[in-house]
């Protein structure tokens, strides 16, 4: 076994079409199987999902409480000119666009698994296309509305 440490890896590497790291000695079990090809969008969806999840966790409770409960019920009434100045500030506009888009991606990604696993709608491609397609459309509408607020 110890007499041929270099010849075995090279002979294995030539027999395989892709250069995969060859594990030494344990030739029966492939410890590093070639990775399954994934659709290239998946890392970006996952990035949007986790970024959106973090933004939702940190910002949505306070935003929902202020603007969806406290202000409509008259508990708090922010000065409109100040609120308008804050919201139409270019920095706020850019941050809101990024925030809203990743929140939509996050929501669509979860909705996909809610429909697929929760309601057991076992049409993976259709559910995925509807959720992510809907997310793209919703993102475009959100960006347009936010930009219209600024100009």
């Amino acid at each position, binding site marked *: 076994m110890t007499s041929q440490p270099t010849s075995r890896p090279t002979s294995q590497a030539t027999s395989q079409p892709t250069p995969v790291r060859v594990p030494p000695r344990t030739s029966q079990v492939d410890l590093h199987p070639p990775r399954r090809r994934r659709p290239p969008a998946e890392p970006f969806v996952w990035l949007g999902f986790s970024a959106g999840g973090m933004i939702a966790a*940190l910002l949505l409770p*306070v935003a929902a409480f*202020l*603007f969806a409960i406290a202000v409509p019920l008259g508990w708090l009434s922010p000065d409109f000119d100040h609120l308008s100045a804050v919201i139409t500030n270019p920095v706020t506009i850019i941050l809101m666009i990024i925030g809203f888009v990743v929140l939509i991606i996050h929501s669509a990604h979860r909705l996909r698994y809610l429909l697929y696993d*929760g309601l057991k709608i076992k049409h993976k491609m259709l559910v995925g296309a509807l959720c992510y397609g809907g997310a793209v459309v*919703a993102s475009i509408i959100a960006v347009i509305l936010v930009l219209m*607020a600024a100009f």
Partner: protein
Amino acid sequence: MSAPVQSRPRSYRRPVSVWWWLKKPTYLLFVLRELSSIFIAWLVAFLVVMVFAVGRGADSYRAFMDWAGSAWVVVINIIAFLFAALHTVTWFLLTPKAMALRVRGKAVPARMIIVGEYVALAVVSAFVIWLVFL
């Protein structure tokens, strides 16, 4: 309900009921957590329209808040707020499992990450309130 797949041979899988998530509290919590996505989408839509209304001036902002003060919108928004809070709690519980943080080669305990997230939540909330009201 759906016909079992017979085209390719594979091991038998017992069909799972659509109501599988009512069988255990943890399953229910999982589905409620995933359900938060619908209310997060609602809150995004609500906030986007509010931003749009603010951009159009004081009158449309006031009209929007009058609409937002109607009973059914308030009820939806209170439910949405509760789901947003559920998302926050479950998300903070999950992050130490998804993200292994290391400082000088030592793993940061999960408890510390969660505490840090709640500190961040407090800071962000205070900042938003300061931004809107001061």
